[in-house]
């Protein structure tokens, strides 16, 4: 794969309820990303947005974000998945040679829409929707139970992940304030309200408002724009089957295949990774993903020291538990990985990070997963 550089990024501070409108939010984010690279709107050759019509409460929601999103008279399109999928499309557009500077923006404002109702509309309309039994939360509960039963994992081991991410989030000033809990203990996590047994409130990545943007450029342009770009070395994405009964919920087939594809195109293995930013909808998903990617053996994810100064730091920014703005969450993981590689993660910087991975996901129990391999460029 030819080198494509990440040359700019921006994301707004996540909040349970941002007090300004969506168009303002889009404009601020896009403007922030352009400013971070010292570029102007006229430099953009393509814009890919990432929202969901159901989350926005508006059909063809991208049609209304043309001006604030920097897409006026620009080759534009929209991906209705997670932010990193939109980055994938932008990456393809750059690799094709048709475009020289791509902007990706993603995000939503769950304070304005009932997040769980939109999940209902994503279920199979014949067999599942009429019963209203299945949603993100319920599937997460089943996934956690399957994982614990399969490998004999204790609930404390999973709570530990939530504690780590909440504590990390406290160091990240852009994280959701409600998730910034510097003094949280395993007991606090276990004693919080049960959302879907055995998932408790503090193990769940609560939806919050947020928006993020990223700029991509091919190698030559990237080096003109910035001295320390971060290169996209590899990408893999994959979708497994939908029905939970057809899947082994204790593992992530989609992430396994996606990471295999990403590592193959990057020419590295999981051992070469210095830091990981994974989109975990629930604390246990971080463990399942780290096993699927190959950071740990199956069932041994909880044995891995993934603290900021650990063997392999995972989610030093606090992860999705530190702030989950639907559509933007995966893109924020990418941005945080970029920050780690550029040494700009103040307060939660991992030492000597050269190679990072960042992931995104869509669907129940992460049915569709995407993984990026990012490499430090410049000095």
């Amino acid at each position, binding site marked *: 794969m030819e080198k494509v550089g990440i040359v700019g990024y921006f994301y707004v501070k996540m909040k349970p309820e941002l007090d300004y409108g969506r168009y303002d939010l889009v404009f601020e984010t896009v403007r922030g990303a352009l400013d971070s690279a010292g570029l102007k709107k006229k430099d953009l050759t393509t814009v890919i947005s990432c929202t969901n019509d159901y989350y926005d409460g508006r059909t063809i929601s*991208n*049609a209304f974000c043309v001006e604030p999103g920097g897409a006026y008279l620009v*080759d534009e399109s929209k991906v209705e998945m997670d932010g990193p999928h939109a980055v994938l499309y932008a990456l393809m557009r750059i690799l094709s040679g048709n475009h020289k500077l791509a902007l990706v923006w993603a995000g939503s404002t769950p304070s304005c829409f009932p997040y769980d109702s939109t999940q209902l509309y994503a279920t199979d309309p014949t067999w599942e929707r009429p019963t209203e039994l299945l949603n993100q939360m319920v599937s997460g509960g089943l996934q956690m139970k399957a994982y614990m039963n399969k490998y004999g994992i204790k609930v404390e081991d999973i709570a530990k992940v939530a504690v780590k991410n909440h504590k990390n989030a406290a160091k990240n000033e852009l994280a959701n304030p409600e998730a910034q809990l510097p003094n949280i203990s395993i007991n606090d996590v276990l004693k919080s309200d049960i959302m879907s047994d055995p998932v408790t409130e503090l193990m769940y990545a609560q939806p919050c408002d947020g928006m993020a943007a990223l700029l991509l450029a091919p190698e030559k342009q990237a080096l003109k724009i910035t001295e320390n770009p971060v290169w996209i070395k590899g990408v893999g994405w994959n979708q497994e089957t939908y029905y939970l009964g057809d899947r082994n919920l204790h593992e992530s087939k989609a992430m396994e295949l996606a990471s295999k594809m990403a590592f193959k195109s990057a020419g590295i293995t999981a051992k070469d990774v210095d830091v990981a930013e994974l989109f975990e909808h629930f604390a246990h998903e971080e463990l399942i993903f780290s096993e699927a990617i190959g950071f740990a053996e199956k069932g041994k994810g909880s044995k891995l020291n993934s603290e900021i100064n650990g063997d392999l730091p995972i989610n030093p920014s606090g992860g999705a538990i530190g702030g989950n703005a639907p559509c933007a969450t995966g893109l924020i993981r990418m941005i945080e990985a970029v920050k780690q590689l550029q040494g700009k993660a103040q307060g939660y910087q991992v030492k000597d990070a050269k190679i990072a991975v960042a992931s995104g996901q869509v669907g129940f129990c992460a049915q569709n997963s995407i993984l990026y391999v990012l490499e430090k460029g410049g000095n």
Partner: protein
Amino acid sequence: MGRQTCVISAGFSEHASKRSDVSMPEMVSEAIEDCLKKVPGLELKDIDAFVNGNMPAFEGANIPELWMTDWLGARNKPLLRVTTGGTTGGSVAIAGYYTVAAGLPGVDTVLAVAFEQQSQGDTSVGLASVALGEMTAISSLGLPIEKLRRLVSAGAAIGIASYQATNYMRKSKITEEDLARVVVQNRRNAAKNWYTHLKMPNLTIQDVLDTPYISFPLRYGMVCPASDGACAMLFTTEEKAKEWADIPVYVNGVASVANQTAIVGYNAAGAGQLDPSEQLGSQLSADLAFKQAGISFPRKEIDYAEVYAPFPNQELMWVEKLGLFEMNTATAMYKAGVTAVNGELPINSSGGVNSTNAIGASAMERPAEAALQIMGKAGNQVKKAVHTSLGHGWGGIINLITMMVMADEPQRKFR
């Protein structure tokens, strides 16, 4: 950077106002089957990645490709979802092109699928939210809620189209009869194409003009139907295309340049009262796609065009804006039979969106038909040999455009 992308096949499901005989995934797999059976030797396992899209609000199903995974044949395969309103199909096709053109390792053959089963939901409700969001902007003008509701019902596709139609009619000095002529050509063409919705082999201009108005100047007999249907296109590399297809179709130019939202006039994003028949975005899209394809004189070099025209005035407008005819001459061309199946530059020989409109699929059916015309496999094949063709789409609030230019020769830089 990049590599040549080819189309090797395109397929359709049967279209009708209610495909209640099949579920949404079954309808989609009809299109996939039709697409794959045209390429002997190619099986589902040869497909490396999938791109898909539909308009979720129109059938009340959000991200349906998740539960449709197995019917698409996408289990344990990379899949990307692209949705952009009316242009969804075109955007999916363009994403299919880019997935191959990017040259990602292990991704050579891509199946692009677009679909819509409007009978499952309520498209008008879905479209109302396009206009309803402007409620605050409209009420700030002092309009009472009753009037607002009336505005909303006219504010969906046909509301915009009738403004566009009257603007275009004033500028090009055409009559309602000229609009009806376009409809007659489309529906008669549709009668010869197997999958279309409105097949009317004996329709006359008078029949169209005898139907009542929906919104002046558009009559009931002039507007597109609401269809259920799906479309699939198969993209691959030049090497594999030569192996699999007798006549590989080279995708040489793609563009989707967005115009401003304020085009409708009252949008919160701007106060500009623009002429909705101006369509700067489509002109720039055409320029970009033609430039990539190395086409300097579209009027001379394009042999066949599929333009996205649910309403007849749009067909006349688009063929001019895309550079296929001089401004304000389209009507004369339709009169002279230039755009007929046996004409010099046939337009919408498939019957077009005017005869069949499964919204999410429609903008993909345009490049799909344009590709099949080059292969010589179209349902209503034109008489002349087609070397270069284009497929176009519009959507959003008439501010989004998709363009795909294809030929039987590769792009110059890859020759």
